[in-house]
């Protein structure tokens, strides 16, 4: 009895965040794209970023993908071998980090895929950049990645240009997850797809997230997509974060006037 009472108070679970972005600001001429934006993403969590067109959400995702540098700000990923502000990395280091640790799915497949190469080749390219030089392994790993993104394998050697929009997104997804990235960035992954295909792609994403516990950041203007996918939500407007919180909380009880408008404006 007394032994039970003598127990030390339990320690709190503290998982350090995978992604920490602090005070990121970016201007393009007179246009303020981002102003003092901070974000934190924990491992295996899905962060949704919503906002209207021009609110800076895609710019923020580009920063996370190290495609662009901000005027000021600090970006860290808690990954082995990485320290310091990632915005200070040079082009080569950024490229290697992008190629091996971060996956991205763009809204427009033309941005993320080599349209004149085969679908399996597109996936294999990622592996080639990472140094895989065995044809058999490339083929097997490309097949696995395409299979995981529920791409019909009999079409794995078709060029993406010959495929439907939903399939192109699946190729992009396979390419992004081929190297088991620590972070998966999704920029409007289902915009432009019809509703049923959109649901299928979201299903795949959801299943991947469950099976592989991938950390995701998903940007969308579609609240439905965010509601299905995200654990936490960030609402952006005019380059600022106006509200942040758990997805249910934000959607059930929006605090900021803009978020209220956004939630109620849903058709």
């Amino acid at each position, binding site marked *: 009895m007394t032994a039970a009472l003598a127990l030390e108070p339990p320690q709190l679970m503290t998982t350090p965040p995978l992604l920490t972005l602090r005070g990121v600001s970016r201007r393009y001429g007179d246009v303020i794209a981002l102003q003092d934006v901070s974000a934190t993403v924990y491992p295996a969590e899905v962060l949704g970023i919503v906002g209207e067109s021009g609110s800076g959400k895609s710019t923020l995702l580009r920063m996370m993908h190290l495609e662009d540098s901000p005027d000021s700000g600090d970006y860290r990923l808690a990954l082995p071998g990485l320290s310091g502000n990632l915005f200070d990395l040079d082009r080569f280091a950024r490229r290697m980090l992008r190629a091996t640790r971060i996956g991205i799915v763009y809204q427009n497949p033309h941005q993320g895929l080599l349209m004149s190469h*085969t679908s399996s080749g597109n996936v294999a390219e990622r592996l080639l950049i990472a140094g895989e030089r065995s044809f058999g392994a490339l083929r097997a790993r490309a097949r696995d990645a395409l299979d995981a993104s529920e791409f019909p394998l009999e079409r794995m050697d078709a060029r993406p240009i010959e495929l439907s929009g939903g399939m192109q997104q699946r190729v992009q997804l396979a390419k992004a997850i081929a190297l088991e990235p620590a972070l998966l960035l999704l920029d409007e992954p289902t915009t432009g797809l019809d509703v049923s295909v959109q649901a299928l792609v979201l299903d795949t994403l959801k299943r991947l997230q469950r099976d592989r516990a991938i950390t995701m950041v998903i940007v969308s203007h579609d609240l439905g997509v965010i509601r299905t996918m995200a654990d936490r939500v960030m609402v952006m407007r005019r380059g600022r974060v106006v509200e942040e919180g758990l997805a249910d909380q934000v959607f059930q009880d929006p605090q900021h006037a803009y978020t209220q408008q956004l939630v109620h404006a849903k058709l």
Partner: protein
Amino acid sequence: MTLAALTRPWEPMSYGFLDASAKRELRRKMLKAIAVPGCQMPYASREVPMARGWGTGGLQVTLTLLRPSSVVKVIDQGADDSVNAASIRSFLTKVSGARETWDTLEATIIQSRHRIPEERLRADQVLVLQVPNPEPLRPVQPDMSVARQMHADADYGRLWLVLYEQIVRSGRIMEGAAYPALVNGRHVMTPSPIPRWDVPKLHMAPHLTFLSAGREKRLHAVPPFTRVEPLVFSDVPYQVEDHANLTCHRSGVSGYFMNEIPQGDGTSRFELSDSHLGIKAIRRAEGAAMAVGPTWYDGKLPR
């Protein structure tokens, strides 16, 4: 003392056709190219009395290297007697006073398009290849400024991607000529029109090789004893054309790179691509004393 005594006598053209400053620039670029094996060096490609695309790049390098004591051999498609080879050779000898030859063993400078001679080159010989397209990344990256960045990053994944897709589509690598090769473990070059057969001849070769593209205004070099490794997958071996069992219908020799000559009845005959090696073999069979040097693939080809 008169002014005339201080100057050189008037000449109708400068030695070796190119003016001194042009040759100086080329020499500097050639030295740079040797210093960074396989890296493409831009140079100011000068006008020569020949159309761009007909070997002006190789011609300029050869003109820069020539001395009156040089012995020059020019090959076009393996042959010494084709029109292009003959006219380049006569031009070279005319402007430099160098001696011309068809014999690989005798030559000090060999300018070539398409082929590396079958007889092994020595350390005192220089091979100059005329290259139409020096950029291996052009098929995968049309933007040349991005391609240069890819060279800087050694970002050559897409070249393997091309090979991957050839195996996927055709079951084998289809790159017959211009096979990309990694030079000194750093830069990928395309030794453009030479066949796959000839690429291993550059690996750890004792001679110096220049590859120069006049139209593209770029040259690169493979210095002696430099690694030249064709891009391959670890589980797909590098294969050259299966010519080991073909026999030349004129000289009767086999085991070398052959030209296929289609016949009227639908069959084809083969003859040695390296024409002077064939001539030597025929003369030797007739009883003449001909020295044939050791060849690259002596006993190394599977029969």
